[in-house]
């Protein structure tokens, strides 16, 4: 097993699935000759041709709709939306069509569609291009929403998503693309959707996160570890279905929990988890569930303000320490 980037792990999964199943094809803006804005589809147009790696106009509503239609007819499209910010113009297709069709057709027709799209912030892309909107979709029945945090999970979950018979929103992250990790060489390796992972074991505090925030949480755990505080990090991996059991098991052990996410806290992943945790773990808690998310503002352009708005490690660490102080630790 060699270290590869998150980007390469995705590319490899796409390559192997295109190779494995003739029904799989890719669609998106400039994913062919240009190899995609973030180079995830590098080399695939050359290898599989324009029929299976299809260039689209700048028309998210149109090509997501085309993907849904193709999926209903039995193909397995993987649609790339350049960033999650641009999915908003295709909202009707995602929420009102992809998510609803199996239900409205009485279960006779499914939509085995994957929408790949990165979120995240930190490169001064400002208010419209710095969002993490996955929680909006995670609240919608009929969709699956995943957000892997490392190359191995990205590889294994993208394969699972492509093989799934229902629509999957596959959330990537701009900062994660260059993160490296080991990825199994075995082409049969997959990671199930709906199962969280214990990214690091600990006893004093649970930090729950998804996507790039898991990497931040692991570094915070290291820092607190130097002060003798043992932090468990739960990587949700999937937001819908949400693996509440793994979180609950952890909270029952640590009695303290903080949920961190890159999106806004209000009505966010942490809000959902706080509700689930207090229900399942009421008698296990030593302090209220704590949340850390982005500042509740449109992302500023100014670098100092952007840093102030992001849920950086320093903020997660401060919130963790404050929570632990409330518990006399």
């Amino acid at each position, binding site marked *: 097993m060699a270290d590869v980037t998150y980007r390469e792990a995705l590319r490899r999964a796409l390559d192997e699935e295109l190779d494995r199943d003739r029904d799989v094809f890719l669609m998106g803006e400039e994913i062919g000759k240009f190899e995609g804005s973030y180079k995830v589809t590098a080399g695939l147009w050359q290898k599989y041709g324009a029929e299976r790696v299809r260039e689209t106009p700048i028309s998210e509503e149109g090509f997501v709709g085309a993907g849904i239609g193709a999926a209903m007819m039995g193909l397995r499209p993987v649609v790339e939306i350049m960033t999650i910010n641009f999915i908003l113009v295709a909202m009707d297709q995602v929420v009102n069509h992809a998510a609803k069709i199996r239900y409205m057709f009485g279960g006779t027709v499914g939509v085995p569609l994957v929408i790949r799209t990165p979120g995240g912030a930190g490169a001064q892309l400002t208010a419209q291009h710095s969002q993490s909107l996955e929680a909006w979709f995670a609240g919608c029945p009929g969709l699956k929403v995943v957000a892997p945090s490392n190359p191995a999970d990205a590889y294994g979950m993208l394969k699972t998503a492509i093989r799934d018979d229902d629509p999957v929103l596959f959330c990537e992250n701009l900062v994660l693309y260059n993160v490296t990790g080991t990825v199994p060489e075995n082409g049969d390796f997959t990671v199930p959707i709906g199962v969280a992972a214990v990214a690091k074991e600990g006893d004093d505090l649970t930090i729950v996160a998804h996507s790039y925030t898991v990497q931040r949480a692991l570094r915070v755990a290291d820092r607190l570890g130097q002060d003798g505080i043992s932090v468990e990090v739960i990587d949700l991996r999937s937001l819908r279905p949400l693996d509440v059991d793994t979180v609950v098991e952890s909270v029952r052990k640590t*009695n303290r929990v903080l949920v961190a996410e890159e999106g806004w806290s209000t009505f966010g992943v942490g809000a959902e988890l706080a509700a689930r945790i207090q229900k399942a773990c009421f008698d*296990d*808690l*030593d302090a209220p569930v704590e949340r850390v998310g982005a500042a509740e503002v449109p992302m500023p352009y100014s670098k100092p303000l952007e840093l102030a708005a992001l849920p950086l490690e320093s903020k997660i660490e401060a919130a963790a320490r404050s929570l632990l102080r409330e*518990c*006399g630790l």
Partner: protein
Amino acid sequence: MPRLSDTMEEGRIGRWLKREGDSFREGDVIAEIETDKATMEFQAYDDGTVLRIIVDDGETAALGAPIAIVGEAGEEVADAPAEKEPAAAAEPEPATSGSDPNVAAAPPAPAPQGNGKAEVLRVSPIARRMADTAGLDLRSLAGKGSGPDGRIVKADVERALQGATPVPGTDVAPAPEPSPPAVPAPGEGDEVRELSPMLKAVARRMTESKTTVPHFYVSSEIDMTRALQLRKELNEALADSGEKVSVNDLIVRASAQALVQHPQAHRSYVDGTHVYHAHAHVGIAVALDDGLIVPVLRDADTKSLRQIAVEARDLAERARAGKLRQREIEGGTFTVSNMGMLGVSAFAAIINPPESTILAVSATIQRPVVRDGAVAVGDIMSVTLSCDHRACSGADGARLLQTVKRHLEAPTLLLA
């Protein structure tokens, strides 16, 4: 509760100057708050109206706790944050007999005794469950919780259970015996009173000083005959101005002069370093009805005797009136504690950290002295210098005291 001194952890409302319904402008003094150091004026940050007072005159609140609600005149206020709830709300309903045969009726917890203002016991859910399992009576931890608002948390229960026999299974064990109180209970007729914030600060700082600062003491007797004569002449000359020079002013002046001459006795030991003080900021201990405070006369080494007299008098008057500002009670490099007016013949004082020396001044008493081989009547003042041995050696302390003595015995030096 605003932070009005660097070290305050709680404050007591001396009195509200604006009551509910009163409006105020930005900068108006709306309350007097007793911190650990002084009574401070609390100025309004903005225009507004006092809608509700939460912490009333004489009551204490932790730093950051709400003390009042302010807003627009006539604005409705929701119920103030509940500080105390009736005890009944927190107690479980006793099971009604026969209501559910599967549930054994637990005896109701005894109601707290007293005035009906029982504190709600705040307990985190896991702490409550652990205590239940171990048979620990959480009321034994009342007031000892380390969480917000005194919430009893897991760590508190764990500490309480340490030493207690672990309970196997889920059987309920008897509650651990309460540990005997460390001090005897007050006897009949005794009265127990809370310390004022200032007395708490004094208790804490003096304990800290006496237990962590290695004190040593150097004593001397100073012949004050000429100094008293000088004072008399000065006060006669200043009679028209209303100014008056006290013995203490002479001592402050002599000390300030001596301090800048002896840098090794005028430095503080701070975290393994010596901080050498450029100027002598002399603290003057002022006794209050119950307690004391030490206003600081800054740059005493650069001030004339007359200036020192005027400033010291002002500081002492405002100290007794509780009107000192925060910056007037900080930053001392030396303290004079004078109990001469109380007739004491000798005493030693506790250093006021981070200062490294304090001069204890006793009464000036007429005694026979030997001058030029003949016995004469002298006005003798006994002084004891307490020194922090981490900052200065015995010889450093002795030299400092020697210079103080020299300046008081040849007091024209005080005018130099």
